């Protein structure tokens, strides 16, 4: 039997061929200079048995979905016709030779095996390959390989356990492509047709709309106004200090702080009148700082922007390249738990040659290994991002080096023990007011030794206090402070917001963030050089910020990552960005394009298609209906959008 294998990109075709062929490969050129056909023999086992195989690749998507030529003009027919105009899916112009190669090869084969990446996009590319191959041979037996890295044993295992292509995922992606096309084109033309004639600076701008771009921009604009509009307020608190065994013990007020001076004075006076404080609770107990969860794509991007001085997109590009070279597993994953059956120690073993973390890896093998924590997410397609083989720094590019180091340190941290310490809590009642002191002594650093991105510094050991004991505090003072404005969004914040609000997939978030910069809707500035005109908070940093305890997703305390990070970029909207979001927000609160709701619904619908709860056609009808309604409203209230543009972009506004 002859089998045609097709991967998503040439590097994967090459790597898989080498593993399957065991060295005896014939390489043939094709019309496309990037794509080679690898010919070899391979025994697929029970299904196809011993076969002669041709392995080739595509370069991502083969097809492009577009409107017929009569819709080329931006003004006629009017843009809203694009909501129901016919669309055609054709082989993309620059991919005709790639498709022709597949069609040609398929003629000689009885079976087709898809080796695209195992995610929704990959499934759809797989479908495109099938369509191209069927043109050459309509009676192909089609299978798909499930794999998440190109390590040898894993690839061989995938080749022996072929599955079917998942039509539901294919349908979800094709719905998404069609929606993005119709909605993106219609609104981009609407915006350009109406705003560009208003004059410079609009005329020379590219004003595009994307259903992810706009909500992403919306987050940036929303935070910008929260910073701009912020009003600092004074607050007061009570601090109690006591000296014992030569140690200053600071007790914090259970009420934290109150925004009324008179109230605090009353409570403070009653403390002082009480004179003596009584110890109500003393607790010493072991405490831990949890090691991180296994690495997901979103987490990789957030950490890269915080600690590696990379943008999310740079980090993904580097990760992609590390994956293509076989150094790390597939970098697009939502899974934060390792399969119980995985041999993690073998992966740890591979890291022992390194002179930075080799010894740490060796120590794990010598008994320090501990099974990673299990997160709650499993996309059932890929394991968490982890190193596959060892890569010496000399073989990696600059960005790759940083990302690889992070992936490895994260992985080793996952396989290590939590950091351990002892926490002491002392509660006192001073009059009617409760105060508490908290102390931590770090005993075992464990994972912290390799995971340099987390900090856990102990406080001084607290002196001995006994329950029921009464003492006169050394000092009790009333303090005051002022709330401070929130910061502008960082890329990590933005990714977290997109993630929480279902904007984009983990794989596409970085692209949307890049897009709103390319379109000059936002600009980034280093946090340090923040312009001084925002807020009149005098500049003296108050005791605590204005932000309350916002829950952090996934329960992992990110508290240790504060300040001191130089080079963190903040996102600030341009006047154009502000005008667009304000324009749409002022039109209609229910369905503003600057809000995440519509897009979130769309993402959930994609998921529903994948899970078989709805169909492609139903989703297309619903979503197009919704966006068409927004389109009509936007057209009715076009004056509102134009007014926002005049206000923010031209002289007659407050800017």
């Amino acid at each position, binding site marked *: 039997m002859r089998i045609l294998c097709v991967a998503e990109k040439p590097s994967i075709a090459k790597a898989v061929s080498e593993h399957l062929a065991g060295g005896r490969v014939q390489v043939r050129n094709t019309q496309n200079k990037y794509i080679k056909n690898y010919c070899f023999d391979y025994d697929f086992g029970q299904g196809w048995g011993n076969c002669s195989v041709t392995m080739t690749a595509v370069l991502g998507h083969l097809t492009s979905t577009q409107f017929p030529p009569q819709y080329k003009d931006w003004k006629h027919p009017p843009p809203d016709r694009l909501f129901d105009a016919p669309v055609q899916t054709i082989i993309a112009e620059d991919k005709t030779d790639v498709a022709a190669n597949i069609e040609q090869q398929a003629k000689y084969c009885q079976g087709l095996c898809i080796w695209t990446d195992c995610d929704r996009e990959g499934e759809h590319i797989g479908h495109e390959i099938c369509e191209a191959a069927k043109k050459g041979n309509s009676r192909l037996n089609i299978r798909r390989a499930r794999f998440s890295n190109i390590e040898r044993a894993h690839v061989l295992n995938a080749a022996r356990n072929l599955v079917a292509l998942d039509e539901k995922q294919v349908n979800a992606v094709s719905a998404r492509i069609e929606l993005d096309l119709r909605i993106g084109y219609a609104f981009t033309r609407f915006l350009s047709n109406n705003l560009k004639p208003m004059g410079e600076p609009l005329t020379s701008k590219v004003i595009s709309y994307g259903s992810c771009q706009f909500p992403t921009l919306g987050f940036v604009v929303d935070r910008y106004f*929260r910073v701009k509009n*912020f*009003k*600092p*307020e*004074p*607050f007061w608190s009570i601090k109690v200090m006591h000296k014992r065994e030569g140690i200053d013990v600071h007790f914090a007020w*259970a*009420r*934290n*702080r*109150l*925004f*009324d001076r*008179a*109230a605090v*004075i*009353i*409570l403070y*006076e*009653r403390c002082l*009148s009480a004179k003596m404080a009584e110890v109500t609770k003393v607790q010493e107990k072991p405490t831990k700082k949890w090691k991180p969860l296994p690495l997901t794509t979103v987490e990789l991007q957030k950490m890269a922007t915080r600690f590696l001085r990379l943008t999310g997109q740079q980090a993904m590009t580097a990760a992609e390249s590390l994956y293509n070279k076989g150094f790390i597993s597939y970098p697009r994953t939502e899974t934060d738990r390792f399969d119980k059956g995985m041999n993690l120690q073998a992966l740890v073993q591979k890291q022992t040659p390194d002179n930075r973390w080799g010894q740490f890896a060796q120590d794990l093998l010598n008994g320090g290994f501990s099974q990673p924590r299990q997160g709650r997410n499993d996309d059932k397609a890929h394991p968490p991002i982890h190193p596959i083989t060892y890569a010496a720094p000399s073989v990696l590019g600059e960005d790759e080096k940083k990302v690889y180091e992070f992936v490895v340190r994260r992985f080793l941290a996952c396989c290590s023990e939590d950091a351990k310490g002892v926490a002491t809590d002392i509660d006192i009642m001073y009059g*009617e007011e409760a105060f508490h002191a908290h102390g931590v002594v770090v005993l075992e650093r464990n994972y912290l030794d390799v995971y340099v991105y987390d900090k856990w510094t102990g406080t001084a050991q607290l002196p001995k206090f006994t329950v029921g004991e009464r003492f006169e505090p050394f000092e009790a003072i009333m303090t005051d402070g002022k*709330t401070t404005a929130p910061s502008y969004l960082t890329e990590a914040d933005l990714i*977290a*917001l997109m*993630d*929480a*609000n279902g904007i984009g997939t983990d794989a596409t978030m970085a692209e949307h963030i890049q897009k709103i910069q390319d379109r000059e809707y936002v600009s980034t500035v280093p946090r340090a050089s923040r312009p001084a005109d925002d807020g009149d908070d005098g500049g003296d940093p108050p005791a605590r910020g*204005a932000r*309350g305890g*916002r*829950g*952090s*997703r996934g329960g992992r305390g990110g508290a240790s990552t504060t300040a001191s990070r130089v080079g963190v970029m903040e996102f600030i909207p341009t006047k154009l960005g502000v005008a667009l979001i304000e324009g749409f927000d002022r039109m209609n*609160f*229910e369905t503003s394009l600057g*809000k*995440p*709701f519509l897009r*979130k*619904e769309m993402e*959930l*619908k994609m*998921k*529903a298609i994948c899970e078989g*709860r*709805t169909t492609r056609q139903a989703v297309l009808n619903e979503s197009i209906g919704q966006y068409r309604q927004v389109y009509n409203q936007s057209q009715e209230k076009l004056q509102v959008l134009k007014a926002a543009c005049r206000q923010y972009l031209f002289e007659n506004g407050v800017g």
Partner: protein
Amino acid sequence: MDLASQVRSSLQSQGLPSPTLAWIQNVLPNRNPMPPLPALTATARARLMAADLTNPGVLDASAGVLPPNTTNPGVKETRLSKDVLVQVLDLDNLTKSKWEQVEELEAIARGEQTRGREIVRLPAAGDDGGEEGAYGSSAATQAIATGPNLRGGPPGSEATPRNSTHRLVVQDCKGQKVYALELKRMEKIGVGTLNIGEKILLKKDTVVARGTVLLEPTTCIVLGGKVEAWQKAWIDGRLARLKEAVAADARG
């Protein structure tokens, strides 16, 4: 004993101050046969909780009032010598900055709330929400959108944090107003849970410090009730008051 007097003694036995007999007479239903006493007492009590105590003729002259020096900040500490029934006129969460409350109210007015980082869209009035549910997107919003006084309560007002401290303005039947500060956390006190016009019984020995009543569960009992018109006015004007207060802070 006539019916009104019976109702009065039942109310007294519940620890409530006595309304005038004329007032009780007026709130009793005009029915024959009369409902049993416990039902009548409950009716009278509910009417009392919804009444404006400063209306003359509601409470009997024997009802406790705040002593004259209650609001004197020069007095470090004094205690009430008898029970005093008061009504809530204003409520302020001192734990949250006013601006934070402004931002929350504005988000709600836009039809949004945030839960952590997630922005949640509130169901608009008349939102059927049936279809969305199929994708689970509205499940989260439903939990929050309970109760008709949605606009009055901050996000998650059902769970005001344990260390919250509120300050109230309360008023006795003579119309005397005084600040009341939450010395110990009282579950029923919270924006969205305590109504304007709600009645609080300040029991004998309640501490008054520097012109402020100190509220704690042992001496102070939240009885319930509200004055509908006051509650509505308070909710409608809350955002404007908060903004005005922030602006005044900035000037001062």
